[in-house]
């Protein structure tokens, strides 16, 4: 029997009917139809499903949908500006970090949460922060260098608030 869960998704209050055993990832993809969080392993190993829950990066396949009641969920769609790109997106794009791109949404979300927590990291700290996000094409170095470039201000300041018009 599905149950209702109310939360704020990308700045908009939503109410969704889900099975009690559904994960946040299943709710976002299958009930709401947001495909930016990807399913790579469904076991919390790969990080392709990373979203923000109350401004913290979480693996949405490890979060039960019912537990986001009253909380704030942000997917990649929520940090993508209506015009242009977020600095991390711009850096990934210009540096050619994504290859197949399947890990990219999770990488952006992990990097964004990390840079808000630690705005001036070392390269080592960036690699540590992204170590929960697997990239089988092997773009780790480009992703890390792109995040470092963002931290160095090469792509402008990180937006503080969230886009509200998704």
């Amino acid at each position, binding site marked *: 029997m599905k149950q209702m869960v109310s939360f704020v998704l990308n700045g908009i209050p939503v109410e969704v009917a889900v099975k009690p055993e559904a994960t946040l990832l299943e709710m976002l993809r299958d009930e709401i*139809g947001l*495909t930016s969080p990807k399913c*790579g392993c*469904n076991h919390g190993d790969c990080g392709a499903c990373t979203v923000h829950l109350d401004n913290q990066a979480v693996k949405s396949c490890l979060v039960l949908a019912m537990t986001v009641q009253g909380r704030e969920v942000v997917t990649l769609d929520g940090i993508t500006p209506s015009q242009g790109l977020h600095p991390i997106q711009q850096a990934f794009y210009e540096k050619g970090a994504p290859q197949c791109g*399947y890990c990219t949404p999770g990488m952006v979300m992990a990097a964004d949460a990390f840079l808000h927590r630690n705005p001036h990291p070392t390269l080592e700290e960036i690699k540590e922060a992204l170590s929960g996000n697997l990239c089988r094409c092997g773009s780790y170095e480009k992703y890390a260098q792109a995040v470092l470039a963002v931290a160095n201000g090469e792509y402008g300041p990180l937006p503080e608030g969230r886009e509200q018009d998704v």
Partner: protein
Amino acid sequence: MFNAIGKPIPRYDGLGHVTGRTIYVSDVTMPGTLTCKVLRCPYYRARIVSLDVTQAKRMPGVYGVITREDVPYNRFAMVPDNHVLAEEITRYRGQPVAAVAAVSKEAALDALAKIKVEYEELEPVFDPEKAMEPDAPQIRPEGNVHLFDGTSPVRRVRRGDIEKGFAEADVIVEGRYTTPCEEHAPLECCSTLAYVDESGKLVLYSKTQGVYFVMGDLANVFQLPMNKLKFIGNTIGGSFGSGNSVATDHIAGLLALKTGKPVRYTLTRAEEMMFTTISTPWIFKIKDGVRRDGKITARHVEVIHDCGAFTELGLYAAEKNANLVAGANLIENLAVDTHMVFTNKLPSGSRRGFGVNVGQFAEQVQLDRDARAVGISPMAIRFINAFHEDDISHVGNRLRAVSTIETLQGVADLAGISLEEQYRTMSSKEVEK
């Protein structure tokens, strides 16, 4: 003058990737899609004594259950010897036995649990060298050793006279090299969305990497003319060769045809890791005759390709390997003997230079050993034996645009190795006589 050469250019799909707007095969949806789950054989080798899907068909939410009886043509793959759904004898752990399409994942899994299969477990063979022995369990009715062109258990490459070459050598160097099973582990698991469209065509959204590699093969499985099959590739979340083998298209398509409803079959991470094609193991035994000056006078290579349970792309790999395993060296007296052997491992698929890189690993380590045996540097032995422009390859092609020497010079430069004068100035274009 140039718009692209020498300049970084943005990827055409880069904006979609960084914004999450790229649609992958597993993102495509159709209203009313059923979920497919597959029952897999838990044994490496077994006889299916009985298979009963009666109860599974009666489970709530189940639209279709299929076994081999429901497959119009149960053979597929480039060499069509693989079974869509298991026949009497299963050959690898995880081989699909039956498939269910139901309204939800839960309903499909509940139905799988109601399928009754009685297996008689049979002795499996894992070691390809053991599989070649005459008293080994015969895992295929045709025998464990592949017959090339239907007649020869060995693919032979011959050049010159290796006995004469070995007689000219000062040192004989022998080495045995093995490579393990390797899984591609792409981040997006294999997935297919299949449905019959309004014109009666079977449409397959497939996480294939080779639409035209497998389309004819699938038409054969469905026994549909090509104009009744619409095969749609898409952006895929990594593949690395795994997408050249069919893992979900055939079963999803069969269930869509059977139920008349859209069917989605996506492998779980565990299925992707454990039951899709892999790089299967190789064994290389290399015997070289080397002169004191570093010239390889003779080489004998014995190759054993463990092809796993079905041919899949193993034959393609074995043929490529036989042609290239002796490396980028001009060896006047050469013999390559390649065997392809079936075991109860996963079938041999394509993965990143399949058949080629494994042979180069063996050949390159052997060259280092050769160099040590005659007391010259690893670089020197590669220059001394390198192919030059217009040399004849080991399988008889005249080589054009040869760059072995220039590549070695580049490698030495990057590795900070200072080359001796004669190697620094050597060129692929000039042949020393």
